[in-house]
């Protein structure tokens, strides 16, 4: 009997960990307006996923549905492996809302104490002080929030999201009220969360921020997932632009072997595969030189996430315009 139990226990422990967030077919209608339509996404344990999209794309609605703050009309949500309908699924979830407001009659210390009590976890006072210090509020720990600036309230919101030892942190526009230094702080915090294996779902307008910290990106447009994938997948293959003269046939073959080649006068653009190794560019250049081609310039070409995002959104708009016509 105990052997069977042990076996079962081993089976369970050997199961791959459930994703931090899993949702499927989320749908939300406000009156006649469809805010979210058939959104499915996943955030793996320890993964940082960025949620991008224009205003009104449904990003905040999706986040609120994940956290049980908005009732989806259809769809399923699992948080840390538990159905999100159950409040217990949120024990290890930290959340910084887009609309960050905390009880103005409390102090940061009291706000954290309240959230720790509500989370039902035992978080020591030292830990709480450390979190306040991490977001730069150690000096104001006992002041009433009534007199806090927006930036300081957002810092407190970050501390609230981090205080109850989360395994998943949902940050909705976490830097909207912060100065450049504060933004760097947030970036460092997100990176350190990833190092500790904490999953992060980050909704941000700052594409640069998302590009720096996120493993994967989900792009929402008009309530639907317009694209999703790792940065490599989304940004596609890397390009290499070469200015070459006196290109012999052998060098052309070598170029073609590296990837698809396009030629415009003396400029050759080679699309390198996404999984290319670091040495492939110097190897290619050395080979071209040895094959007799004269190399004048080599430029890496990589489209930015911003260009890609705009491209996806414009393509969506064109499609709708075409459909309407």
């Amino acid at each position: 009997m105990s052997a069977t139990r042990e076996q079962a226990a081993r089976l369970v422990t050997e199961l791959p960990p459930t994703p931090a967030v899993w949702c499927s077919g989320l749908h939300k209608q406000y009156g006649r307006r469809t805010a979210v339509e058939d959104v499915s996404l996943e955030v793996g344990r320890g993964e940082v996923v960025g949620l991008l999209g224009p205003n009104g794309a449904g990003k905040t609605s999706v986040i609120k549905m994940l956290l049980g703050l908005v009732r989806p009309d259809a769809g399923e949500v699992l948080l840390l492996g538990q159905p999100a309908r159950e409040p217990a699924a949120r024990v290890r979830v930290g959340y910084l809302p887009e609309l960050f407001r905390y009880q103005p009659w409390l102090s940061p210390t009291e706000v954290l104490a309240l959230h720790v009590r509500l989370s039902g976890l035992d978080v020591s006072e030292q830990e709480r002080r450390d979190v306040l210090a991490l977001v730069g509020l150690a000096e104001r720990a006992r002041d009433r929030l009534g007199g806090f600036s927006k930036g300081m309230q957002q810092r407190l919101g970050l501390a609230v999201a981090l205080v109850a030892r989360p395994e998943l942190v949902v940050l909705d526009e976490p830097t909207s009220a912060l100065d450049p230094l504060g933004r760097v702080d947030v970036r460092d915090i997100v990176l350190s969360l990833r190092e500790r294996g904490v999953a992060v779902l980050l909704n941000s307008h700052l594409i640069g921020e998302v590009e720096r910290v996120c493993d994967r990106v989900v792009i929402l447009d008009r309530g639907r997932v317009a694209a999703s994938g790792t940065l490599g997948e989304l940004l596609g293959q890397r390009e290499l632009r070469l200015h070459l003269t006196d290109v012999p046939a052998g060098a052309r073959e070598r170029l073609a072997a590296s990837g698809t080649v396009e030629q415009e006068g003396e400029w050759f653009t080679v699309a390198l595969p996404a999984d290319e190794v670091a040495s492939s560019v110097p190897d290619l250049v050395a080979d071209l030189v040895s094959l007799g081609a004269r190399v004048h310039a080599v430029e890496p070409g990589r489209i930015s996430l911003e260009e890609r995002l705009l491209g996806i959104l414009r393509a969506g708009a064109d499609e709708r315009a075409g459909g309407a016509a």
Partner: protein
Amino acid sequence: MSTVLTVAQLTLREASRRRVLLALLTLTVLLLALSGWGFSRVAAESGGSALTSGETRLTASILLNLVMFGFSLIAALGTACLAGPTLAGETESGIALSVLARPIRRSTFLLGKWLGLVVFGAGFVVLAGLAQCLVVRATVDYWPPQPGRALALLAAQTVVLLTLAVLLSTAVSPMASGVVAVGLFGTTWVAGVVGGIGASLGNSSVERVGEVSRFLLPTDGLWRGAMNAFQDPTALSLFGDEGGEAFPFLSTAPLTTSYLAWAVLWVAMVWALAAASFVRKDL
């Protein structure tokens, strides 16, 4: 359970930190002092034998009920105006977002808020009412026949009104919820007085106005029960039963058990409605 207590405690802390407690305390002291002065004048008049002992008891009963009405009005305004900001205000401003994203049920959160308001509102009327009874005892040597019952009914009246305010604040804006709750409280009281006049005139259709309003919102019914327990039983005989009906600060009949049961059921139903509305609310 600990979540309910945490939220209730938070609501009480809000009331004290937002200076609601201080404002109520100031108003109460003012009202106590004024009534103390008024009652001492009654005592002076009756001492000069301008009033018979029966008249003194009648005057004391009426004045006591009048001041108690003042307290119940303060409690009504206080709790209704507190229920709005603490519930609708928090959902509107976004304070509720981070709290409700914690592993707690919304109904538990609502129960905590309601409990905090109950302790605050009921605690206020009981303490202020008790202080008033003591003032009356010290000045005109009148002690109500059933002070415990009377104060409990005053507290119950506050609970009824704040439960209504909680329901309203799950559906409408903080300002509207306070205004509507206090407005309904006033309307029911006026309807009760109109019903009393109808009874004294023997007009049953006018009398029904009071009965229907007391059924729809039990604040006035409970208030009449409280008055009956505060006033001297012989006081009414001076008026005659029908004249007493018409007078807004005397009550002819004690509260029936069935009405009390209805009030309890009413609170439970309205609270359940509030919870159902709050659970379904998109934040």
